[in-house]
């Protein structure tokens, strides 16, 4: 038994299973974060007063983190492009960067959290901080998931390149789509929480 269209695209839909699956998963993720952003809007609309993000959060640090994540999205694209060009060594290099940059992001995020705890700015302090902690932590979990997946494809998972290159390319494309989504969530989170 062989499941069809795991690698090659089905002619009438123009997609392979993996690509369709990851897009559906991302649709569901959009609804997850959509629900949280709607909660943010509703809570803020109903609030008596709402602090400016800058009163609690450090904008320069947030900007640096935004740049780091966008950078990792770029290296992800480069990794995929290198595979498409058949340059496995370059792929390894770019993928390593894609794994390390979000680790740096998490370290900086950890420092931010540490600072909050030091000032007793815990989730129970106010609704603004509650939503800040919840949304960034949930995003952080997605980052950790992405690091795990990309780390696997950089390390043990990359053996597949030598046996089933087409399938491996598809996997990297799917991992890339997920990774861009995680970055995109941050690109919404940063202005909403830090700047508005």
């Amino acid at each position, binding site marked *: 038994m062989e*499941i069809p269209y*795991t690698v090659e695209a089905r002619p009438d839909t123009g997609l392979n299973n993996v690509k369709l699956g990851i897009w559906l998963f991302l649709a569901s993720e959009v609804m997850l974060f959509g629900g949280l952003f709607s909660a943010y809007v509703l809570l803020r609309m109903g609030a008596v007063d709402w602090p400016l993000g800058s009163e609690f959060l450090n904008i320069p640090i947030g900007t640096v983190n935004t740049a780091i994540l966008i950078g990792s999205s770029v290296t992800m694209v480069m990794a995929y492009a290198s595979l498409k060009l058949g340059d496995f060594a370059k792929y390894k290099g770019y993928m390593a960067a894609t794994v390390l940059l979000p680790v740096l992001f998490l370290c900086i995020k950890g420092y931010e959290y540490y600072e909050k705890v030091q000032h007793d700015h815990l989730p129970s302090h106010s609704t603004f901080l509650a939503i800040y902690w*919840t949304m960034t932590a949930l995003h952080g979990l997605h980052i950790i998931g992405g690091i795990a997946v990309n780390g696997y494809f950089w390390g043990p998972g990359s053996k597949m390149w030598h046996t089933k290159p087409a399938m491996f390319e598809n996997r990297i494309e799917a991992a890339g789509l997920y990774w861009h989504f995680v970055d995109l969530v941050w690109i919404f989170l940063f202005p909403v929480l830090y700047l508005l």
Partner: protein
Amino acid sequence: MRPLPDESLLLRQGRDIGWSVSGKVKKGVTTLDNVTTAEGIAHAEHGHDEHELSFLQSYVFSLDHKVIGIQYAITALLFLLFGFTLMMLMRWNLAFPGRPIPVIGNFLGMANAPGGIMLPEFYNQLGAMHGTIMVFLGVVPLAVGGFGNYVLPLQIGAPDMAFPRLNMASYWSFFLGGVIMVASFFVPGGAANSGWTSYAPLSVLALEGQTWWLIGMIFLITSSLLGSVNFIVTTLQLRAPGLSFMRLPFFVWAQLVTSFLLLLAFPPLEAAGVLQLMDRVADTSFFMPSGLVTGDGPLEISGGGSPLLWQHLFWFLAHPEVYVLILPALGIVGEVVANNTRKPLWGYRVLVASVIFLGFMSFIVWAHHMFLTGMGTTISTFFQTTTMIISIPSVVILSAMFLSLYGGSIRYTVPMLFALAFLPMFGIGGLTGLPLGLTAPDIHLHDTYYVIGHFHYVVAPGTIFALFAGIYYWFPKATGRLMNDLLGRIHFWGSIVAINCVFMPMFITGLAGMNRRLYDGGMQYAHVQGVMEWNAFMSYGAWTLGFFQIFFIFNFFWSIRHGKKVGDNPWNATTLEWQAPSPPPHGNFTTPPEVHRGPYEYSVPGASSDFSMQGQAPEAESAKV
């Protein structure tokens, strides 16, 4: 002549490596050589998919959609029984408030029922868990996880689901969620007791069981996410050659729309669950308004939250969830009706359009559950309008099913009896929903037994009857044997009478103003004294209903081994699943199916038999060969 020897070899090998419900792997008559060849081929083709599997691999951690479907179905049936048992306990207290429960009362524990008399707190736990278990652990897993997994890949001619491992992960995530839910009965303070809707701030202040409920829900949501991605990809990608969208059986359409609802509606509840979890464990105030005072004095929280926010996020899931409950049932009824009237479903294209429209609309009606929350008349008017609009496709579907009966030569098989009962029962459930969807009558009717009667008519004699129809209908496919006909008829007639005795009086007590969620059945209220005697009547109905399920349970297990053996297509049906052997081997079809016609070509004028299977080549061509 040419392909015959190969085919029969394939068939035998398929059977060797397949499975059967009777609990043993059939070795058949093939020699050891053949078995190793089958394994060898399997190895060569796709190394990860070994076929000679250990017991654990073939029955517990199986990747085969049929095994997973049966795992889902049996687990869900057990949960349905469990949830029903909780209700039978509650019905005792409603019928005879303050009296000790005979026999069972002694085993409920001092914390729940001292001296066998149920405490209100325990009643609340049972109520909340009845709803949760029936919806999230019973009906949906049976309708989508069970029937979807087993039947959908067969009906589209696929060898398996698109992502077998995700499929297995989906089942085990569901299973874990179920274990967490049941285990929560044993934590201090017992299970969640804030209703299946878990309205804040009540649920935020509730005891530990609520935290378990939230964690259990997160597992269930993960399960449905994995499942729905899998169903959509499978349906779109793995259709057999020639199976265009307008040739899909109605059941497949219903499952496809259902999967989209699960995919897109569940995540907001996950978001809400995370927020409520934060409220409970990190003392945030997402759903907690300022100035909240309880029996222990003012709460020390930051405040500023919105209890309405929970309701919005919850019903944004839970209304589409209603259609998740009903659409697969409509799909099953469509299959059974077409098969047993021996004519095509009336208005197939209209049915498909209605199901898709229903799916879209179900995302914009959620706040009709919230008319009396003070969200404002403008919003209420909007949701009242959309609610009236969504009733149109529902009526279209039901009418099409009724019209399908007209002029058919109906076979009153057991599945058909259940499907026929579904139609008026779902009709009653749907029509009694209209007054609830209009803001003015809802003022009187909300939170009464009328609401309970309404949605139970949709889900219990509606969906669950359709699911029974599905079990009787597809049982021969899964086991190669029919379920006993006489026991099936006793089960049907007993259930249809008893279930109406349970739910019909609810409209009476509800219209009289009897409130739901009262643990003593409304004893303290003067205005419902005139209808109080119905409480005992309904309870006797519920226990009778329980009694008649024994016939089903016995029939189910007895027929696995002793049912009448039948061929691959005992109902003379047209859709692809009946082209596969019963039970289908791993990989499903002995020859890759190809589709030549629509799903319901019954009694085609000029055809040689009264059904033309989808995989059957056009007669002119087959005559040439």
